């Protein structure tokens, strides 16, 4: 045994978790919502999802080959981005829209800024905002199926409520709470079923891929603000109205799956709370004050840009340092 053994710097063991496993878990966690989307909206929804994922992965592969960089499609992050873009599409959207979205999200938002971990904005949401602005008719055309989209139904709800605050919610736009929760309402493919999204979120929480800080502070802040507002404005059933705001539209998908995107949210615990609370306030402003049909995407994209600053200000104080400062002062 004269030959040498292999050496390396400690630690000599590593946790089993890898980037690929994390991204795989997120993709799995989005499956219940995807299945619900296909069940509620039909085969075209499935094709939209498949096309979104395929074009995201292909964009990443081609871009990395052309720029002669290591191909990273196996880390599955492009799959997650593509899936999120697909889930954010109206069910009957023309296929060129998600393709364009995936190419934009992967190449412009992610790769041009340095690839995985370096993007300052969530690629899927960057793509959604780009599409909402550039192809607003396609992005807000929810066809005949289900009558109205979540956002549109909410807009109608808002209109009804704000026009005649004391009028009952029964006047047309309201859905039974059960349908709201299960997802049997109009909306984008993946955002309608709160139940399916919560199942996925519970899976990620159990695997410790995400924690409760961002989603709870986000949804909690939003809930409180909407409830207070609907009480002040004297809506007929403020509690029901608030629940509609929570379950209809993109809040569940955004809060659990997109606000928690590692690269674009703060790493510090305190920072994550601030980030979540700001998201709640912004979403409230966009939806309740400006009456914009889409509040969640813009709120998250806006906060993505503030993440580096939040992180800077919430950097944890090193262990034992506070004490030292006190000792010096005293």
């Amino acid at each position: 045994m004269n030959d040498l053994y292999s050496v390396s710097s400690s630690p000599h063991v590593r946790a089993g978790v890898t980037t690929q496993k994390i991204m795989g878990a997120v993709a799995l966690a989005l499956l219940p919502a995807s299945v619900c989307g296909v069940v509620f909206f039909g085969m075209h929804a499935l094709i939209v999802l498949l096309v979104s994922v395929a074009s995201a992965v292909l964009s990443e592969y081609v871009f990395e080959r052309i720029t002669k960089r290591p191909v990273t499609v196996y880390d599955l992050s492009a799959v997650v981005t593509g899936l999120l873009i697909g889930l954010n599409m109206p069910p009957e959207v023309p296929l060129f829209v998600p393709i364009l979205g995936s190419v934009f999200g992967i190449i412009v938002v992610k790769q041009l800024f340095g690839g995985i971990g370096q993007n300052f904005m969530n690629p899927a949401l960057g793509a959604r905002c780009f599409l909402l602005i550039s192809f607003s008719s396609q992005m807000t055309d929810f066809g005949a199926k289900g009558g109205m989209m979540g956002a549109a139904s909410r807009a109608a709800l808002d209109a009804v409520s704000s026009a005649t605050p004391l009028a009952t919610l029964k006047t047309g736009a309201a859905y039974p709470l059960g349908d709201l929760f299960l997802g049997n309402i109009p909306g984008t493919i993946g955002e309608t079923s709160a139940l399916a999204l919560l199942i996925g979120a519970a899976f990620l929480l159990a695997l410790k891929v995400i924690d409760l800080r961002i989603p709870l502070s986000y949804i909690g802040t939003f809930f409180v603000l909407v409830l207070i507002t609907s009480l002040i404005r004297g809506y007929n059933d403020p509690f029901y109205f608030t629940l509609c705001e929570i379950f209809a539209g993109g809040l569940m998908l955004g809060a659990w799956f997109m606000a928690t995107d590692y690269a674009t949210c703060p790493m510090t615990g305190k920072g994550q709370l601030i980030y979540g609370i700001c998201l709640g306030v912004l979403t409230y402003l966009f939806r309740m004050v400006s009456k914009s049909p889409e509040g969640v995407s813009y709120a998250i994209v806006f906060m993505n840009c503030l993440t580096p600053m939040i992180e800077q200000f919430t950097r944890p104080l090193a262990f034992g340092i506070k004490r030292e400062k006190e000792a010096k002062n005293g």
Partner: protein
Amino acid sequence: MRLKTFKGGIHPNDMKEISMDQPITMLAPGKEMVYLMSQHIGAPAKPVVKKGDPVIIGQMIAEAGGFVSSPVYSSVSGTVKALEKRKNALGDMVDAIVIENDGQDTETEYATAELDALSKEDIIKRIQDAGVVGMGGAGFPTHVKLSPKEPDRIDHILVNGSECEPYLTSDYRCMLEKSDELVQGLMCILKVFPKAEGVICIENNKPAAIERMREAVSGRDRIRVEVMQTKYPEGAERSLIYAITGREVNSSILPADVGCIVNNVDTVIAVYEAVIKGKPLMHRIFTVSGDAVNNPKNYDVRIGMSYADIMEEAGGFKSRPEKLISGGPMMGFALFGLDVPVTKTSGAITCFLKDPVKEAVTTPCIKCGRCVKGCPAHLMPCDLSDIAEHGDKDRFAERYGMECVECGSCSYTCPAKRPLAANIKAMRRTLLAERRKK
């Protein structure tokens, strides 16, 4: 009641079941014994024997090289074969005394003592003369630790029985098999600090040790057992002090500055042997573990024995391991070979058939924040590692890089398998070397 702990940390698989249930076994020493002159922090010991001198067990072969230093004793009888450079666990060639073991085990007479008859000064003197140093790994001479500037401020003597490093079970076995010696050793230290209380700190994954130690301390009102949450690095000095007392120690102060002195289980037993039995430090409990060894368990080995002899005596390898670690996998040193002697501070050898990190591919940071959550020093290891890679010394210090305790939690928990701890450690070495020059 919530278990005591610190903020941060990780939960590696502790792998203690491999070796924890076997009683400690005596190992016969090898033919050639090597005693390094630097088995402690501080000035190296100075040899007091020449080549050809006969020596017996318990004879001093090197004296302390100063106050912060420690003498070395022969653990076998035989002849001094050489005074030469030998390899230590880090792979450096360092001064050593080589003794040919005659196998006779001729031993000196030791001057035993009663604790009641000893003064504080006597106790510290006996510990100093016996060459006792911190046996948990750092090797800080115990008599120096027990001589703080303001002894009256010491109110906690912590016995570190947390043994949070995976695979290692030597402290666990000692607490089970040598609990009375441990308590008596602690009594010796408590006599030096009349205002202090003794706390034996154990993680809750060692219920048998907790029970055994509770029995051993019953009726002694100055000693209690504290149960802590099982988490790595619970046994890091600063984490332990915080868990038990809520006090924070940073890199510019000592535990004694917050009224605490922390000693490892093995060290306290060595204190007992030194103070009561008058025996110098010549042996230690050593864990042999990992998936590559035939008989994973704890052995009572003599200091100076080579790892190769230990492995031979302990039943050898199942097949050739790919990686050997002196110590445990989190903070231990990977060995080039087995041609390394046991020192006062070497507590284990962990042998892996497959090197668990060889295959790891480093990918870009995804900013998941796992390293931030895991850092017991409350740093942002991902940022510090980047700063270290860029060689930005000022920024590294400004971001408290020197507060890193090098526990390796960040590298362990990183999904992108980035060498965070290695980068940070390298920068710390550079900065420490520069500070020493100034």
